[in-house]
């Protein structure tokens, strides 16, 4: 059984409908358990209780990037193989990615406040996420602006491609731009330092929870898009008849 079978909207609706309750349940369990567990961990001797923010910040940041990558892949699948479900999945994923990016930005800024003394700092990582947020906004705006659904899918697909190249390029440019300042001010722990198990396992759990949450939202939102398209097609046919 090939994954391409799910490109068929009917099959996608049937399968996603069957799978959805399980995904939602798993997402709820992992996310809630992970966040509660993380909230109850002891304080870090360096960062105090702010280290608890890591259980929100890291999963959100990871999802922000992975969702964009997923949009890139599904956009390519649409551009090459013209599977409508793929294009709609990309459209559906974008707002979730934007929210994840926003959470990463806000938690990053709040986490940095005690350390930097300000609510915002042009730290390379935060700045890159701000740029990513702008790309998400532009992508969503373009979907909304073009009337013809296939044209919208094509244009946003190309935009996703170009945006991905420039998001990567911006990452390096921003590192270059900020290299002279605040060398030690980045948020995560030093790369060599192995996170202690006390933090590591709740973190894995919340990462899984956020991924499952995205999956659940993606399935529901794609189903919404498919239904909307079906309704639009029916209306168009009636208007022509």
């Amino acid at each position, binding site marked *: 059984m090939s994954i391409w079978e799910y490109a068929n909207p009917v099959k996608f609706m049937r399968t996603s409908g069957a799978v959805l309750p399980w995904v939602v349940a798993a997402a709820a369990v992992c996310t809630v358990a992970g966040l509660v567990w993380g909230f109850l961990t002891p304080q870090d001797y360096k960062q105090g209780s*702010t280290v608890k*923010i890591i259980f*929100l910040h890291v999963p959100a940041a990871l999802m922000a990037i992975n969702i964009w990558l997923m949009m890139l892949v599904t956009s390519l699948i649409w551009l090459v193989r013209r599977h409508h479900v793929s294009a709609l999945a990309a459209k559906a994923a974008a707002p979730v990615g934007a929210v994840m990016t926003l959470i990463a930005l806000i938690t990053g800024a709040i986490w940095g406040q005690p350390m930097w003394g300000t609510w915002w700092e042009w730290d390379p990582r935060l700045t890159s996420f701000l740029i990513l947020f702008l790309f998400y906004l532009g992508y969503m705006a373009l979907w909304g602006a073009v009337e013809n659904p296939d044209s919208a899918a094509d244009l946003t697909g190309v935009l996703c491609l170009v945006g991905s190249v420039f998001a990567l390029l911006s990452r390096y440019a921003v590192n270059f731009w900020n290299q002279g300042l605040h060398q030690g001010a980045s948020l995560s722990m030093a790369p060599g330092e192995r996170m202690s198990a006390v933090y590591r396992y709740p973190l894995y759990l919340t990462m899984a929870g956020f991924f499952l949450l995205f999956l659940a939202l993606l399935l529901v939102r794609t189903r919404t898009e498919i*239904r909307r398209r079906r309704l639009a097609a029916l209306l168009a046919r009636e208007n022509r008849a």
Partner: protein
Amino acid sequence: MTELGKYAGTVLAAYGASLVLLVGIVVQTVLANARARRELQEHERRG
């Protein structure tokens, strides 16, 4: 409850903002889906 110490405000602000956003996108997703399903069903019933 675990002690939050002097960073209580910070941690709670971060968790609060994140939860608002997460709940927000979940609610919007569910409502939009319900609406799309309802409109499609109404149209198929009428047509």
